[in-house]
């Protein structure tokens, strides 16, 4: 199978200080990320997620291991032409307007001159940044910076999009907007790799996840498989009376089943916030 990203036995050591003490950031990591999926790379701060992505993108060299992107050796120009990247806490040249930045990135990514205008407008539209695209980036809010960062990452229509903490510091409305962009990319058949420690969002948008800790891979699999407890079931019941509950318990016990807890369903605080605050503040 041709994977979007294939990482085999990746190890990355950093040398610290004059004595060159070795700090192992990634330890014998092997990962295979299938094409056309949203893949979440999770873990606490300092677990090696961002380092792994930097090695994949050729920004940092590997101490050991092999990496390929879309079947090409990583860090080659050909591989990067098919990859889009949004770094953590992106910072762009403040004096450029959003449109100028996206155009600049499109030019660097090899978009043909004849397709440039259309590609830039498409990317701005996808990130819902058309209206603010004429303003200098220095005037953008945090959420708008992330969205313009997303636009520059996808302007050359890459097959693989790598997002490093795309919702860090962004409010729930902005975060939901980025979630929609990720879904739009998946619907177009793109592979999205999402590096985050915001587990709620990852659970909502990702098809597969990998969890890293101290540079090692500790879990990998489809979100559904990883989170489901096959030996437990949840039923949501409307208008349940004490009598109905007693009858249900008796019926279940007759079949050897047992109710272990009964609670009221809750919506998440994030859902409630998004319902109350309809977000057009960034537009």
């Amino acid at each position, binding site marked *: 199978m041709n994977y979007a990203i294939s990482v085999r036995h990746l190890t990355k050591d950093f040398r610290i200080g004059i004595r060159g003490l070795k700090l192992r950031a990634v330890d014998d990591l092997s990962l295979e990320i299938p094409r056309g999926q949203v893949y979440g790379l999770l873990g606490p701060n300092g677990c090696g997620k961002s380092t792994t992505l930097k090695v994949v993108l050729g*920004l940092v*060299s590997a101490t050991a291991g092999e990496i390929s992107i879309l079947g090409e050796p990583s860090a080659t120009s050909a591989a990067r032409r098919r990859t889009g990247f949004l770094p953590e806490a992106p910072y762009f040249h403040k004096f450029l307007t959003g449109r100028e930045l996206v155009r600049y990135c499109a030019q*660097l990514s090899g978009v043909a001159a004849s397709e440039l205008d259309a590609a830039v407008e498409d990317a701005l539209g996808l990130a819902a940044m058309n209206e603010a695209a004429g303003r200098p980036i220095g005037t953008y809010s945090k959420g708008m910076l992330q969205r313009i*960062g997303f636009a520059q990452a996808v302007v050359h229509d890459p097959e693989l999009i790598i997002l490093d903490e795309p919702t860090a510091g962004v409010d729930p409305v902005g975060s939901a907007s980025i979630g929609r962009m990720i879904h739009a990319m998946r619907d177009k058949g793109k592979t999205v790799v999402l590096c985050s420690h915001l587990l709620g969002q990852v659970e909502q948008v990702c098809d597969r996840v990998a969890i890293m800790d101290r540079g090692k891979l500790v879990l990998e699999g489809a979100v559904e498989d990883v989170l489901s407890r096959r030996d437990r079931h949840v039923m949501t019941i409307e208008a349940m009376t004490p009598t109905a509950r007693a009858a249900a318990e008796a019926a279940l016990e007759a079949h050897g089943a047992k109710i272990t807890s009964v609670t009221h369903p809750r919506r998440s605080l994030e859902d409630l916030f998004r319902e109350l605050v309809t977000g057009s503040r960034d537009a």
Partner: protein
Amino acid sequence: MKDSLRRTLWISRVTFLEAVRQRFFAFLLVLSAAMVLSSVSLRVFDFGHGELKFIADFGFGGMFFFGSVLAVVMTAQLFFSEIDNKTALTLLAKPLSRPEFLLGKFFGAWAVLGVFVLVLAGLQGVVLWAREQELVAAAEQAGRIPTTFSIVGLCQLVLLQWLRLGVVIAIVLAISSLARTFLFTVVVGSLAVVAGQLQWIAQDAFLRPTDSPVYTAFLWVSTRLIPNLQQFNLADALVLGSAVVEEGALISVGFSGLAYLVAYLTLGSLIFRRREI
């Protein structure tokens, strides 16, 4: 190759825009321009030399000094702003090679210094021409041979100064690609400029016979590693005609400058290739 040139051009374009919007550039340009213009009113302090020589020395002195400050500080700032603000991460994750990035930075900074040198040389030309007219009229009345300056010489000097500043930018970029901090780059870059200005001393010493092979080797390495930045200072000879400069000598200075420029850019690219961002 065509794509590579384009990418380099786009990086240099944004680098140029970033640099000309900096207050530091505007401040040094205004300061240097004020120095050129003030040379007219300060010409009474000409210490017995010709007035035009004083005006030229004063104005070109400002251009050399502030141009060097701009080349060191601005280049280091342009490089480290990309690294520290992590815009380099976004750019280098695209199909942009590190030598293209470094060359883009070089050409952007060099273009800014081209504007700096051109504006100041233009002002200097106007000041020299205006004073020359007055001196010619006075000399004709007194029946003396008037002092003049050469426009062609001024143009040649502009090119030489631009090349000299290009060498300084290339040295600073080579230091930046290795250094971890802006401050270190500015300090070492400034020392490199001072060393370049004094390189002729090492060259003179190398030509004198010594008994110590270590000392001779040190001088040999120093004279090859550090460019002689004094060789570009031909203002008197080119602009005021105080000495004859042969065309061959100018070409030789030009080639020497270009060779150092290419060598330091190549060195910077090789170091930057291995840098972890």
